[in-house]
Structure formats: C-alpha cells, structure tokens
C-alpha cells in the first residue's frame, strides 16, 4: 500500500494545468502538494457525489483536463456513476481512486468486500477507455506520464495506507483552508467564467 502523500508528490509534476478535485480522508493531502490552488476545486458535500460533480465539470469544460482523486468508500456510494461517465466518454477526465479498503473517517471499518473488489475492472467493464491498478509506487511513477496523456475516461485505482480517524469530529484538526464556494469562485476567475 502506498502513502497517499507519495501518490500526490508523484502525480504533481505531471499535472500540467489540470483542474484537480479530491474526496475522502486521503484527498485532504492534495492541498499540501498543489502549486496551483486556483485550479483546485472542492466539490464535496453529499455522500458519493464528488464524482458526479467532477463528471459534470468535465462535460462543461471539454478543453480542460479534469482530475478527480476519488475515495473507494465514496465511489461505492454512487457506483452507477461509472456507467454514466463511460456513456458520455469525456476525453478530458482522469479518475483516480485512492483505495484504503476502509471508511477511515469513521474509525476504519472495512468497505464491503474491501480486499477483493477491483474498481479498475469495474470501470473497464463499464466502458472507460482504460483502467489501471497500482500497489507499488515505482510502477505508478513509471506509468503516470503516459496515463495523463491518454484520452479519458481513464480510471487509476491505487491501494493506499489508511489514516484512520478515531477522535470525535469536534476534536479533529480542520484542514480546509477555503470553502467550496471560494474554490468555485477562484476557479471561475482563473478560467474567466462569469
């Protein structure tokens, strides 16, 4: 299993100008790595629907590359979305799934069939143009450049180490620096969308 920070550090040099959004416990680390915060957007807010919103963004901005760092627990809550995405075939959409095999934010309970489920196989079966599994950082590092140059929708499922949260919600460190509305406004300003 990979450290999610290593995943982000390996991805970052290959980002280009992609718009990036993330979900889940591990996704919070992206803001510490990103060097283009105006092109980072928060689209969470309803269980499993960051994926839907990122899909909508990809449809609405066909000339921009859209990268989603999804979480497997989140994706499972809205799994039909992979068929919806495949049906519209957004060439500009790269869909990472950071798979820690559990609901880290609620204490680490396993997601259904956590060790055996194959998200990349499901995405390929749904109609994504390509799908990959990684459980080794070097393999990921040698593949990411080619993946970022592929036509989407592409799924990249990566096994990561869980960061299990056990503190009561009110005692946890808040890491959000900008609200969802602020990220939306910043991205629109960056893209010149009124």
């Amino acid at each position, binding site marked *: 299993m990979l450290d999610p920070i290593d995943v982000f550090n390996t991805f970052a040099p290959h980002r280009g100008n992609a718009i990036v959004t993330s979900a889940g416990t591990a996704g919070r680390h992206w803001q510490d790595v990103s060097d283009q915060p105006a092109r980072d957007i928060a689209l969470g807010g309803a269980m499993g629907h960051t994926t*839907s919103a990122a899909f909508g963004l990809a449809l609405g901005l066909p000339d921009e590359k859209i990268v989603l760092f999804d979480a497997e627990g989140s994706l499972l809550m809205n799994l039909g979305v992979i068929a919806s995405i495949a049906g519209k075939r957004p060439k500009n959409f790269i869909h990472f799934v950071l798979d820690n095999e559990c609901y880290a934010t609620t204490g680490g309970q396993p997601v259904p069939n956590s060790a055996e489920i194959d998200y990349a196989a499901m995405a390929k079966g749904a109609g994504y143009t390509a799908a990959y599994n990684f459980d080794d950082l070097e393999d990921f590092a040698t593949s990411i450049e080619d993946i970022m140059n592929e036509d989407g929708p592409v799924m990249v499922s990566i096994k990561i180490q869980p960061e299990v949260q056990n503190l009561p919600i009110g005692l946890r460190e808040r890491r959000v620096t900008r609200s969802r509305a602020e990220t939306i406004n910043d991205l629109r300003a960056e893209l010149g969308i009124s």
Partner: protein
Amino acid sequence: MVQQQPQILRPETLVEEFKKNGVTHIITIPDSETNYLYELMLEQDWLDVVPVSREGETMGVALGLNVAGKVPVCLIQNTGMMESGDSIRGMALDSGFPLVMVIGYRGWTRWGNTPDTAATYTEPFLNAFRINYYLVEHDEDGDRISEAFAEARDTNRPVVVLVGDEYHGFNR
C-alpha cells in the same frame, strides 16, 4: 360532432421553455412517460442530454456544469427525487446556484386523493426542503416554467417544476 382534443402538456413546450431560458444540458433518467420528450431533446443541436444511472447524480453533475458556466436542468421523477434527498441538500441547496429541476409527478390527480404514495409525499418532501415549486399540467402552464427559471436565477436556489400530467394528458 367534432371531439375536442384534450389539453395536454406537449413535450415541445418543455423544449421551447428550455431553449428560451438558455438551458445547455439536461441530466436525466427517463421515466415511463417521457420517451417522446427524450427523443425530442436528443434532436436539439443546442442541447446536450446527459443520461445518468441514479437520480441523485443529477444534482452533482448539475453543480459541475454550473461551475463551468453552463445551464443544466435535472429531469427526473418524484420517486427518484425522494431517493436524492442528500444530493439535493449537499449539491444543490448548499452550493447556492440556480437550478431548475423538472419532476414528473407520478400519481398526481386533480381531485387530490391518490393511491400512489409517490404523489402523497412529493409536496411534503419539497416543503421539508423549503424548495418552491410550480405545477404544470398543460401547454397553457408553460409560462410557469419560465417563472421557475426566473426564481432560480433570482434566488440562486433550486426550484422545481412539477409535471402533473407527464406529457400525455391521461391523468384526467
């Protein structure tokens, strides 16, 4: 004796209202009575139809499209709307953007009582979420659709158009 054609809500009326209000995308799951509307929408070169797998996806996809400067509409049935409660809350209401949701009002009758609980709970559901709605039954109600768009734009909130006749006129 010439039998008068019953008043109906024509699918063309919906599509005309969409065009008038600058709609760019329809995110939808077809319901049992909307096939002709679906085909009509596919024929419009200014409109992109986005089929999804579950109704709750529609509000999230709409948020992404709105961020991109597009004008999305969610077109689903009341049963799916109720399934979508958390998405309506977190994606539509909390995001604060203008969104018209066109909802097929399965089970609705003009005389009020219905054996279909999909209808029984539709308006209480919308009232619980404090979402305003406009009922349309036939072509003469078409202006209400534009009123819904205007209210959504003015308030940056979701507004619902309840389609009481599901485009065919059989509910009378």
